[in-house]
């Protein structure tokens, strides 16, 4: 496989407490990859570490290769040619990521100057084109407004415009729709899907919303307690989740069709990274766990159907079939 980014054994520790326990992840050019998991599972930390955006107290080891270059431990100057230019990132809360006292047009122009050396009228014209591309109506007039004069959804569009300024090969979207209203969420998802079609940039979509991930991603990685527990093509993995945690996430979502039923929560809570259970970190919450699960941690292994899975007693294929039948009927 042609690879744009290659992450190998990426580990992160804060104050000596490991929170990311060796992530192996590839992103192909133009691919849409989803990263799913609950808060604290390490899905954001993976990319903040890759881009050198973690505070100094974080200890990052392993390797993140972008083309021929190594990002882990790279000097600041080298990272600055990557951040925003080759890999851009947008965040959950756009209004806190934009500068409230600088006009939005100038903020986009600044990105254009840094990444593409555009200045003056050329930068302004390109900034307006980007604003129109992300769906800001009446862009020439609104070029000179401040962020508080835009709604939350429009601020997210502006963030995306700024991210596009460097013509990145990869856009990391970290919970980009979580803070937005339902109808606006739908618009932003549509925008991200359209931009990927039009520009051919790869997208990593970090989200806890399985529905949103299903709609815009081709491949998905499910993370739990700092490790990838299951990964594979979206349709296969979502139709037949095999890791009990993936399956549990689906069961916990209320359905929009069919009879109302009691939800099936995952018992317990996410473990404290300072006191991870021995063996499989999910074992204490897992309904399928055997004694062995709390002794030995299962490795992430390739499966015949193209997914990777880290579980000693996964949801069997047969039961996965009946699960999808039941799903199709409701």
């Amino acid at each position, binding site marked *: 496989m042609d690879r744009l980014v290659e992450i190998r054994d990426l580990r992160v520790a804060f104050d000596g407490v490991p929170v990311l326990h060796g992530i192996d992840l590839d992103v192909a050019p133009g691919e849409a990859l989803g990263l799913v998991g*609950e*808060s604290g599972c390490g899905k954001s930390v993976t990319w903040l570490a890759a881009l050198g955006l973690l505070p100094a107290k974080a200890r990052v080891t392993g390797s993140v290769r972008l083309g021929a270059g190594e990002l882990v431990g790279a000097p600041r100057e080298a990272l600055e040619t990557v951040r925003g230019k080759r890999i851009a990132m947008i965040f959950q809360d756009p209004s806190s990521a934009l500068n409230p006292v600088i006009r939005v047009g100038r903020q986009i122009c600044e990105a254009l100057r840094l990444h593409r050396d555009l200045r003056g009228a050329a930068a302004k014209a390109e900034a307006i084109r980007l604003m129109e591309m992300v769906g800001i109506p009446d862009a020439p007039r609104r070029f000179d407004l401040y962020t508080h004069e835009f*709604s*939350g*959804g*429009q601020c997210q569009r502006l963030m995306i415009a700024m991210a596009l300024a460097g013509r990145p090969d990869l856009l990391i979207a970290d919970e980009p729709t979580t803070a937005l*209203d*339902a*109808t*606006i*969420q*739908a*618009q932003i*998802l*549509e925008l991200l*899907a359209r931009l990927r079609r039009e520009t051919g940039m790869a997208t990593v979509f970090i989200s*806890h*919303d*399985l*529905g*949103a991930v*299903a*709609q*815009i991603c081709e491949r998905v990685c499910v993370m739990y307690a700092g490790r990838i527990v299951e990964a594979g093509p979206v*349709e296969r993995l*979502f*139709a037949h989740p095999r890791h009990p945690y993936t399956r*549990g*996430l689906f*069961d*916990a*979502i*209320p*359905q*929009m*069709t069919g009879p*109302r039923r*009691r*939800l*099936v*929560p*995952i*018992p317990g*809570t*996410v473990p404290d990274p300072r006191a991870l259970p021995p063996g499989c970190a999910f074992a204490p919450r897992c309904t399928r766990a055997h004694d062995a699960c709390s002794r030995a941690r299962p490795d992430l292994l390739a499966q015949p159907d193209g997914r990777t899975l880290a579980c000693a007693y996964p949801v069997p294929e047969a039961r996965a079939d009946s699960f999808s039948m039941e799903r199709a009927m409701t």
Partner: protein
Amino acid sequence: MSRPLLLEARDLVRIYRSRRGLTGAVTEVRAVDEVSLKLRAGETLGIVGESGSGKSTLGRMLLGLDPAQGGTVLFEGMPLPRFGTPIWRRLRSRMQMVWQDPLSALDRRLTVAAQIREPLDIHRIGTPEERPARTASLMTAVGLRADQGGRYPHELSGGQRQRVVIARALATNPALLVCDEPVSALDVSIQAQVVNLLRDLQGQKGLGMVFISHDLKVVRNLADRVAVMYLGRIVEEGPAEQIFAEPRHPYTQALVSSIPVPGRPLDARILLQGEPPNPAARPPGCAFHPRCPLAQGLCRTRVPALRVPEPGRAVACHVTAGAQSPVAA
């Protein structure tokens, strides 16, 4: 529908005044605009809408926490007393609220048992000797272990904290519980635990519940009836099953179709143009018309009345409600 009426709101209006800058003109925001609703004992009413739709303000008004400029709230048939008066305080033991962020709703310097017990002390429920046992039974009822009573809020997880808030709200045996986005701040797996807890309470206590949320999936799972709000007004109301299966108002239709469902392609959705308008600059006529795919001439000039196209349902739309349908009382 034989159960007694617990709560009734008639034509509630809440206006916020704001000024742009020091010398700017005062603008009025009608956060809640002539909202009427009824809740029977044991029933759960879901209120859905996007930010700025007035759903949280409405929730606060139902408890008298936010004064109404117009309209009345009747609790068990009696008008709600004024905020802060002794009668209102006494009544508050019968109506409680659960907030979105449990950490800011709890006192971080008190143990959780002390906080669950506090309403018992305030409302003098039981003798002081009985209260520790009652506190312990409340903790068990919401799925907390009695030994967790000595913990402080920061020592608990988000889901456990929300359980503490719910236990505290239930301490006085309320008849009405208003929940404002109670599970929005929680992770999916924990969300399900709290939703199940609320469902159990519905069954056990005959508790009337107003459940305010932007998450339609959760509302569908909990509510008997649903009211959809847009810019301060109810635009559609009806049984939860029907609202989600056959929404009639174009806004509800877009809202329901905007929920990402695994397996449904993106382009199968109704994608609304634009954003919810600023409540301070409400469009004339139907407030939804600038985004509405069905808008006609009339929609731009006249506010549609809430009509009853079939018993139990109400829709405020010139196009889909049917002009012949009777106007909701």
